[in-house]
């Protein structure tokens, strides 16, 4: 038993450590914060000012209320003290005045509160909009190498979640800072003006109260993050194992799996209890401090009150005696003496209403102090998120067009590579090494070679997704870098190996190639890609929704859809990255015929594994480990020793095998 708590504690600590937030907390980067304020917050300054004014006014309402209560308390107590006074002064009318006054305050406050929330929400939404706008605009200018090394999920988190967090924090920090400061200032002034001793007591108690939160907050935050991550890990694991249920069953691991799951679930439960225990301690300490403070305030307050009442009684009696001695009427004496007594008692203690007011006001001071402390923690947290947002916003954009970049409306399609070498960022080995060739417009070029040889990269460089490290690529004799990027990509089009289909209608997906294309053009493109007949069988024909939210298409259908989009864009140079691999031989043949017809005067690069396709081309490029090893007409290459002939022999032998059987 004695060593149980320690192993228990160790287990909790182990879980905590495993899932701790490991992101370095370096604090808010001032530059980021400044940029955020200058570019995104400053334009909203008038709205922010309005919110600040409203919020401050609303903060004052509870204090106003304490004044009313103080007035009422004193009034009532006076009546209780000297019932005769009630007869003289009809206090009842005050009830109606107070009713009107208090209702008025509530209605005005409601209006303020609504206006304030409206402006505040508006500020938040505008901030989100401008941040997302800036982020998205930057994202679209970033080069492909950026997307290669960044996960889509991470980008989504920044654009959506992080921006929302910044909005919430900025909104919260602003309002809380203003109202807390206003509240503390007004409260302290009131408390001190009523009784300096209580003022000092409060000044001592508040830092203690805040220190307590300051001590526990970071631990609690860590533990909460750890608990959330442990939960996610647990869920992910369940999902993983259940998805692979065949493996679990075949290896007979059901029992062992539930055992180890139970162990993790227990650890998570322990961690949760640890959080409960810690927050319990936090609130016990906070309550003890506030209790002691309350006790002190009431102790001093009531002592002052008793002093006040004795002074009051003495003064009252004296004034009464003097008045009667002067032979004044009894009622006039009552009134005069009451006023005299109130004046006389002032320096000696606190009236009932004042005690009540000071007690309420001092209670208003504790929570804003904690809020101010939380703001300092929140700023650190926002700093980390701001860094992520601005890292993205300040990422290096794609090379801009040179000033005198060529606006190329049309192109013949002559292509040449001169000593092109290219290495992907982060790779050690170049993917293309010293590749040179030139091709006249209108040729069909087959690109062959083992996977990883650089075939796709060759096409990407032509699209200028990346710029070569060394050497140059030219279109119609112009270096690609000298052509305006927009024009270049209008003239050259790529159909990818695994085409992307966006959620939307079939027509929308085809029209992605050229937005202003008419329906007839879209249909013609679909026919050319041998897709029209298939589309006709779809429930809504061209308006059928496909992609993630709609019908799923087979690989071959996707390839043809992408091909249709590319044909619609009428490029001078068409790049097909193994785009017909998923088609059955008959369809592929039909598509090829159409392509040959359409691309007769245009240049066409086809990455392929099939010898038949290569044999039908004008030229063949063979890439092996980034080097151009063979280049020439297919007939010519067959006479050479090399990969092309090996592939030729292998594929024809196989069909011969089949024939012989």
């Amino acid at each position, binding site marked *: 038993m004695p060593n149980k708590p320690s192993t228990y504690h160790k287990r909790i600590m182990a879980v905590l450590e495993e899932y701790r937030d490991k992101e370095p907390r370096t604090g808010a980067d001032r530059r980021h914060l400044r940029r955020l304020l200058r570019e995104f917050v400053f334009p909203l300054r008038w709205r922010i000012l309005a919110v600040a004014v409203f919020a401050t006014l609303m903060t004052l309402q509870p204090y106003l209320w304490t004044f009313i209560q103080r007035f009422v308390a004193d009034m009532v107590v006076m009546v209780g003290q000297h019932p005769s006074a009630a007869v003289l002064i009809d206090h009842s009318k005050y009830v109606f005045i107070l*009713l009107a006054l208090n209702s008025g305050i509530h209605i005005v406050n409601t209006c303020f509160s609504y206006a304030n929330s409206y402006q505040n929400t508006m500020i938040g939404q505008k901030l989100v909009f401008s941040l997302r706008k800036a982020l998205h605009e930057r994202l679209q200018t970033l080069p492909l190498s950026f*997307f290669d090394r960044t996960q889509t999920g991470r980008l989504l988190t920044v654009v959506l979640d992080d921006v929302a967090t910044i909005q919430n924090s900025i909104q919260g920090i602003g309002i809380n800072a203003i109202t807390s400061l206003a509240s503390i200032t007004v409260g302290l002034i009131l408390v001190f003006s009523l009784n300096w001793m209580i003022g000092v007591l409060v000044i001592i108690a508040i830092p203690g109260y805040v220190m307590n939160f300051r001590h526990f907050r970071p631990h609690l935050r860590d533990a909460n993050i750890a608990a959330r991550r442990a939960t996610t890990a647990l869920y992910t694991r369940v*999902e993983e194992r259940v998805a692979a249920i065949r493996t679990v069953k075949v290896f007979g691991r059901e029992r062992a*799996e539930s055992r180890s799951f139970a162990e993790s679930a227990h650890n998570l439960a322990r961690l949760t209890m640890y959080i409960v225990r810690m927050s319990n301690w936090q609130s016990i300490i906070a309550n003890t401090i*506030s209790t002691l403070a309350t006790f002190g305030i009431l102790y001093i307050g009531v002592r002052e009150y008793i002093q006040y009442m*004795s002074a009051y009684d003495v003064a009252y009696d004296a004034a009464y005696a003097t008045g009667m001695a002067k032979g004044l009427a009894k009622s006039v004496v009552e009134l005069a003496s009451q006023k005299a007594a109130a004046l006389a008692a002032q320096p000696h203690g606190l009236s009932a209403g004042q005690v009540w007011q000071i007690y309420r006001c001092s209670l208003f001071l504790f929570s804003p102090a904690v809020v101010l402390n939380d703001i300092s923690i929140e700023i650190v947290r926002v700093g980390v998120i701001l860094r992520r947002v601005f890292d993205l916003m300040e990422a290096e954009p794609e090379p801009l067009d040179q000033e005198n970049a060529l606006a190329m409306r049309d192109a013949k399609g002559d292509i040449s590579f001169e000593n092109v070498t290219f290495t992907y960022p982060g790779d050690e080995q170049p993917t293309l090494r010293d590749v040179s060739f030139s091709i006249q417009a209108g040729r069909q070029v087959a690109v062959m070679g083992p996977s990883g040889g650089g075939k796709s990269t060759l096409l990407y460089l032509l699209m200028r997704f990346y710029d070569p490290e060394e050497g140059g690529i030219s279109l119609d004799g112009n270096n690609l870098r000298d052509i305006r990027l927009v024009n270049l990509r209008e003239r050259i089009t790529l159909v990818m190996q695994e085409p992307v289909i966006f959620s939307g209608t079939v027509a929308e997906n085809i029209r992605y190639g050229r937005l202003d294309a008419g329906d007839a053009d879209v249909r013609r493109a679909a026919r050319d890609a041998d897709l029209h007949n298939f589309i006709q069988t779809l429930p809504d024909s061209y308006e059928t929704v496909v992609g993630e939210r709609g019908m799923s298409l087979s690989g071959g259908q996707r390839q043809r859809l992408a091909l249709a989009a590319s044909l619609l864009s009428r490029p001078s140079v068409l790049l097909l990255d193994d785009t017909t*691999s998923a088609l059955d031989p008959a369809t592929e043949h039909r598509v090829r015929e159409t392509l040959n017809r359409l691309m007769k005067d245009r240049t066409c690069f086809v990455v392929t594994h099939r010898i038949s396709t290569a044999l039908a081309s004008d030229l063949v490029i063979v890439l092996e480990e980034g080097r151009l090893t063979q280049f020439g007409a297919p007939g010519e290459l067959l006479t050479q020793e090399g990969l092309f002939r090996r592939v030729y022999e292998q594929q024809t032998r196989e069909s011969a095998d089949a024939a012989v059987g």
Partner: protein
Amino acid sequence: MSIGSSRLQFLLNLIRPYRGRLFIAMVLTMVYTAIALTPPLAVRYFINHVQDKKEWNVAIFAICLIAFLPLWLAVQNLMNRWVISALGQRLVVDLRTGLYRHVLGLSMRFHGESGAGPLMNKLMTDVGIVQNLLTGETLSILSNIVALLFSLIVMFLFSWKLTLVVLLMVILYTLNYVKLVKRIRSANLELREVMDQVTGRLQERLAGVRLVKTYTREHDETAAFLASTERALQFGMRSSMLSVSLGVTASLISGLGSTVVWCGSLWFVLHGQMEYGDMLAMDTYLWQAIGPAVSLTMVAGSITQALVSLDRILEVMQQQPDIVERSNAREASESRGDLRMEDVVFGYVQDQPLFDSFNLHLPAGKMTALVGHTGCGKTTVTSLLMRLWDVQGGEVTLDGCDIRDLTLRSLRRHMGVVPQEPVVFEGTVHDNIAYGMPDATAEQVEEAARAAQIHEYVMSLPKEYNTWLGKDGAKPSVGQKQRISIARAILRKPAVLILDEATSSLDSESEMAIQEALKVVLRGRTSVVVAHRLSTIVEADQIVAMDKGKIVEMGTHEELMEIEGGYYRRLYEELKGKHADVEVAN
């Protein structure tokens, strides 16, 4: 059994071990709530007595009461929370573990081909909601009722007229809440839908950034994103402002109501019908009556949601595994690996048999390749052999013994499986290979890894066999995953090896490595290969060509190629066309 009673039965079973604790928690909650309502009475006592008598000893007593009662309450509340959280956590662990164990025990009919993973993830969240129903909601209903009744009674004793005003206020307050909360919920739902669209589109375009760039659509994409973001923000604004309206109206109702009550009690005090202390207590109880009234309406909503979660869990918990061991099942200690399917009748859907009187012999130590088009039943054969499903007629035998007479563990102990899509779990390489034999030594694991041709790759990893896959910067390719999965299958030295070849094309290097690995591994074992690759098929001792649940042809490659216009021969041609690409690189 009706749904209601089975729900109740389930919940009762769940809390049975903890009924004592739950009872204590309930009592503690009620006591706490009652005591928590007393401080205004202390203030009242203080005001009514001290103010008149000005006696220091009475005052100090009252001060102590006012100051220390909240501390006592806080401590009691914390104890309460401790008891309840501990109970809740135990329930969560029980429920989650029970659910997980149950699901793992269920047969393939439940899991389906796509797998129930995503469903499970959802269910695990449901567990938390159900636990909250048991500990949170039940107790909060209790304390809310106690608080509401207590406040109303005390106020009624002070002044029944003013209590009527309070009641009216509580009703208005609740009505306002009920009315607006529906609109807020639907506005939030709309907002979420719009946000989903924004997220979906953004995700899609980021993943398809090459296409965007190919057609230089960057500006159009930004414009579309901004348009949809703006729309989302309008919805966001609407839903926020609805919430604000709720809050503002509520505070107006309570503000005006409390003003009326307060001024009313002041009137009574001034006319000697009430004491000042009563007035202050009244003001406090007023607020203590409003809170519980709203909480109770909120609880009603969350109970409805919790019941939906509960039903989802129940639906799974009521599933029974259809593959159960017979009571007299025996251990299959040794196996030669001779498998037979005799007159097997089987279909995934009742009355739609895929197999009708299906016969197949897998001789010990030989390799059988199953070939045929998708849906012809190749994978089903392997599932039946492993008894992932039970036959509906006929029998499957291992070494002449009906596999239903064997314990599941011992049957599967003799089978090694390499699935079509290799499974690699979060964990170290060692753990992954030793998955079927957790007590395997490092030497055994290494031997299996060598046989599967993955040893060299593992040695190149930063922490070798202790590398955490997925973390530690180790991202195995599909081919490498497949070899890990092969190593896992052969570690137990199974008599039968079942292999579902991957259809997706691999890079040439992986392809060759896998072929090499298989040659070594398959030697001398009974093996069933759902084959997609020519090289595998050609080397099989026996090829079984299947079509629509029937065996069409059976024999060696040479024998089957003899058949003019035969099914296998046509299949072969087709495969060769498709796989020419892959072979190129070799």
